């Protein structure tokens, strides 16, 4: 039997853990690219609106639902949703998304995270900044990923070793528990992450004009390039969708991880100010720090057209091809490249440990498995599930997992929890619940926002996004015939896993009901 539920050791500890979960690779790679491609400074208007109307309300909802669940002995959306809807089976089933969604992301995220550890090693040992040109760097990455055998790597085994180290590190912190593992990791990791990021921002912003023969390629013009608004872009629905999507990704909302983390709070622990602090820490790491490295550095070496090409080339290309090449052009480049990848690794591991926690809570709270056993069982399942992501990377397997875990499930789960929070629990009761033990009061306008604006915003996103992406992706439009079996394999993993969680939660619900009846009779 699982023992009494754990609690966080301190308020700052839980804030840093939630912020650590939110600050990930996306803050330093995805955000700057999205901003550059979607109107520059003008992107900040839909971005900040989405932050105010989606990000902050969902953050507060998840912190509150999590704390409510913790008081009832649960850390996952399955039981929390069921308990506030008079044991509705539909709500319980929808809650399973909050366990499976982050688990799917974990499956590919850990592998990508392990690249950052490997590249930090390659950078510090001077191997990375000697590649010379883009083609050389791309060949290095493809060789490392095991997509081709070349002069750099004869197979995937170097990547596999770094993956294994990363995976074991993740499960070590999970095994150590909430206070002794995740909180400790966040309390040490987050300050280091901030120091490394500030160091890189200072280095980037002091690049000046690296090539005096090209005075237009200066850091001042780089900031002009980033922040000069293209106001016409605001008329494009895609820009608003991208901004809302970025807010989802960056704050770790709609995943179920904040619910799981908040379930380890005590009854009267504040959720309002803590949620706001975690969100603002993430936004600082994204807008101020994340926005001041990749794009400005790319601009001063590649110019406006080259930077746009980089932004369009995808996250892997930005992080693992362009950035090492740029660092190769500055003094102490190997050191700064190492700092860059170490920063990404810390951002990655503080996020990936959080993705396991809903499944851990589920096993401990609902299936009554001890932490030690749950770590072992989940570690084995996750390790096996990671294998196709590693070996079928070039066949669209990871993209398909990302589509479900990183897009569909996020928006769907957020919509469900918003309706449950504002309409099923009811805004008056939910408002009271949010303010229990609160250090500050939420402006009353948020009553209206949470009840009407956030769900409508989510429905609009769901509708627009379904029209633009969902149907073409479901129908595998543009997918090579040879890759289709891999896409079906990814779908089998996603829905097979979801079905297993649904079956287990229904079994656990029945078992708990019988257990209560037996206890009552006794």
């Amino acid at each position, binding site marked *: 039997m699982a023992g009494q539920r754990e609690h966080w050791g301190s308020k700052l500890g839980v804030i840093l853990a939630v912020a650590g979960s939110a600050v990930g690779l996306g803050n330093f790679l995805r955000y700057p690219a999205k901003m550059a491609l979607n109107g520059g*400074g003008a992107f900040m208007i839909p971005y900040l609106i989405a932050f105010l109307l989606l990000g902050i309300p969902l953050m507060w909802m998840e912190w509150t639902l999590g704390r409510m669940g913790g008081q009832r002995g649960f850390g996952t959306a399955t039981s929390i949703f069921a308990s506030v809807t008079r044991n509705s089976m539909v709500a319980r089933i929808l809650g399973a998304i909050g366990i499976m969604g982050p688990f799917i992301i974990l499956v590919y995220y850990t592998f990508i995270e392990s690249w950052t550890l490997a590249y930090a090693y390659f950078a510090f040992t001077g191997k990375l900044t000697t590649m010379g040109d883009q083609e050389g760097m791309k060949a290095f990455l493809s060789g490392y990923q095991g997509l081709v055998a070349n002069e750099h790597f004869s197979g995937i085994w170097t990547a596999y070793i770094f993956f294994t180290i990363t995976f074991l590190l993740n499960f070590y912190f999970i095994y150590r528990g909430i206070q002794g593992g995740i909180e400790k990791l966040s309390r040490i990791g987050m300050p280091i992450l901030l120091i490394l990021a500030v160091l890189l921002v200072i280095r980037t912003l002091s690049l000046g004009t690296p090539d005096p023969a090209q005075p237009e390629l200066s850091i001042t013009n780089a900031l*002009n390039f980033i*922040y000069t608004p293209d106001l016409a872009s605001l008329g494009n629905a895609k820009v608003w969708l991208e901004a809302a999507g970025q807010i989802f990704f960056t704050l770790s909302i709609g995943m179920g991880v904040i619910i799981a983390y908040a379930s380890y709070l005590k009854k009267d622990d504040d959720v309002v100010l*803590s949620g*706001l602090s975690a969100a*603002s820490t993430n*936004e600082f790491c994204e*807008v101020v720090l994340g926005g001041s490295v990749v794009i400005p550095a790319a601009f001063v070496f590649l110019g406006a057209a080259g930077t746009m090409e980089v932004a369009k080339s995808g996250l892997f290309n930005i992080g693992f091809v362009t950035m090492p090449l740029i660092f190769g052009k500055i003094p102490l480049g190997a050191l700064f490249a190492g700092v860059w990848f170490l920063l990404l690794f810390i951002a990655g591991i503080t996020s990936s440990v959080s993705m396991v926690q809903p499944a851990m809570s589920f096993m401990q709270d609902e299936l009554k498995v001890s932490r030690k056993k749950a770590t072992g069982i989940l570690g084995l399942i996750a390790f096996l599930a990671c294998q196709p992501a590693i070996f079928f990377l070039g066949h669209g397997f990871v993209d398909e997992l990302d589509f479900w875990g990183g897009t569909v499930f996020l928006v769907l789960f957020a919509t469900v929890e918003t309706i449950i929070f504002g309409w099923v629990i009811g805004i008056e009761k939910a408002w009271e619940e949010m303010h229990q033990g609160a250090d500050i009061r939420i402006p009353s306008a948020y009553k209206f926002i949470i009840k009407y604006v956030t769900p409508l915003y989510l429905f609009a996103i769901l509708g627009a996004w379904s029209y633009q992406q969902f149907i073409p992706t479901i129908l595998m439009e543009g997918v090579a015939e040879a890759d289709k079996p891999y896409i079906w394999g990814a779908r089998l993993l996603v829905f097979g896993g979801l079905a297993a969680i649904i079956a287990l939660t229904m079994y656990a619900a029945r078992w708990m009901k019988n257990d209560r009846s037996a206890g009552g009779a006794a």
Partner: protein
Amino acid sequence: MNTEAIIFMALSWGSIVTLLIFSYYRMFRKK
């Protein structure tokens, strides 16, 4: 830098940093 860029950069950074300072100030002031 041009004026438009300065305004948008100041608004973005300013709003985020203000929120950050406010939240941590309120958190530590209580202690």
